[in-house]
């Protein structure tokens, strides 16, 4: 139990997908202009990561590994992810048209969000069992959502701040992201301790 908790904290905070592994940066910069859009993106991505990593685990263990099809891993994973994204897109469009509007192009682009494939590949590398890998994927995506929401809040404030022209827009965004990553380093050591 304690191991699961530590593993999840590690995946969510210490080795945060965005701040420590630098995955999913395009959505991190793209969909964080408003808190609600970032939260929606976080939810959608959480869903996609969790579902696709479960499916990917099954594909890896029952198809790729037994038949020695390791070379097909990326292709099949992308196939699974793309389907999960399509499904999410249909759902979001049905359930929340305004959110669909806000996410815009970034919703179908979850397919190419490297965080999704990255987590799936990390799972394969980690050789985890089904339970652990699902929890790991879920915790990673919660960490992703958390950082997305935090960063969106900060960007909302930056939008009304008098940032010098030289730094306005993405530059100050990346500076903030780096300072945020520095702050998250405070958690380092928790999962090992």
């Amino acid at each position, binding site marked *: 139990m304690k191991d699961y908790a530590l593993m999840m904290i590690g995946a969510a905070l210490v080795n945060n997908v965005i701040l420590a592994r630098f995955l999913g940066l395009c959505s991190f910069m793209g969909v964080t202009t408003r808190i609600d859009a970032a939260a929606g993106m976080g939810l959608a991505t959480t869903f996609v990561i969790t579902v696709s990593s479960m499916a990917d685990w099954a594909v890896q263990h029952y198809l790729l590994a037994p038949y020695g099809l390791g070379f097909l891993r990326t292709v099949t994973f992308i196939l699974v992810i793309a389907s999960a994204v399509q499904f999410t897109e249909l759902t979001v469009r049905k359930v929340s048209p305004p959110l669909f509007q806000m996410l815009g192009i970034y919703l179908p682009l979850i397919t190419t969000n490297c965080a999704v494939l990255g987590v799936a590949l990390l799972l394969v590398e980690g050789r985890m069992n089904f339970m652990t890998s699902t929890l790991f994927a879920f915790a990673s995506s919660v960490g992703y959502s958390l950082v997305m929401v935090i960063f969106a*809040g900060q960007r909302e404030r930056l939008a009304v*701040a008098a*940032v010098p022209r030289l*730094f306005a827009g993405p530059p100050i965004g990346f500076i903030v992201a780096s300072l945020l990553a520095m702050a998250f380093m405070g*958690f380092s*050591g*928790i999962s090992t301790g």
Partner: protein
Amino acid sequence: MTRPVEMPVAAPYAATPNSVSRVMIIVMVALTPATLFGFWLYGWPAIYLWMITVGAAAGGEAVCLQLQGRAVAPVLLDGSAVLTGWLLALSLPPWAPWWIGVFGGLFATVLGKQVFGGLGQNLFNPAMVARVALLISFPVHMTAWVAPLPIVAAAAPGPIAGLLITLKGMQPAFDTVASASLLGFAKTELSRGVDLAQSLLHAPIQGWYGSRAGSLGETATWLIAGGGVAMIFLRTITWHIPLAMLLGIAIPAAILNAIDPARYMEASTHLLSGGAMLGAFFIATDYVTSPNTPRGQLVFGAGCGVLTYVIRTWAGYPEGVAFAVLLMNSLTPIIDSYIRPRIYGRNRQGVALEPGK
């Protein structure tokens, strides 16, 4: 200065005597006793480091303003850059080499503040940004503490020797005074498997009045707290953040200490060591990076406290105030956007009240 009549000025045509520089001056005055005590305790190297850090912070601000083509003097005179450098200096090891102060001071005002557009625009506390950057980049120098060696003591370095320490690093003559802060010591011992009951027996000496190894600002705990309380009474800050933060440290500490005293230190030790007091009264209360509403401030303070405790207890770093403050700084916009005051005639959700009630 009156403005030309052509552009109408809106009411009110009266203004409070309060001003930004008055606020900054009050904070500096509140910091002075603790700083002087630190100077006395750690001698000349501490004085030099303080001057270097404050100078670097102010210099960094001046250069940035110059580059942006803004007037330098009026902005520097508001005192915010000096205060940032001062707070940073209080959180550094007092005998740290000069470049720590320079790097930190510049980092604080340039990357912590001016790139955001200057005073009021930054998202993170500049002093803590610099401290965390230093801690991550130079862990050895940032955790090299010295035992207190009052300036009047015979063994203490004089003005010249002190200058050498600041410029060239620790001199062999003073190797004996190298020490560890209590939190760092306990953490190291715990990681070696020595429990607190054992390790605290030969821990670094803790003077009740603050005579112990640590940064300038962590030793004079009571003077810091006194300055903070004075600021509360002068209404420069409100009580919400300091109280919430101290409780946020004390409550989990007391609970876990009661469960396993061999592993978890007492609440009072937590409160009186490290940057807890400095953080609660002077750093977390920074207007710019903390929430605006009393309820938001309670959440913010409690968050700072709990995170400080969590990082101190379970994470890799012995001291967590700076990290905790930065983490809560990052949550401030979200706290502010969800915790708002109730508007007259509306409920908390912003919906108009029913006339019947």
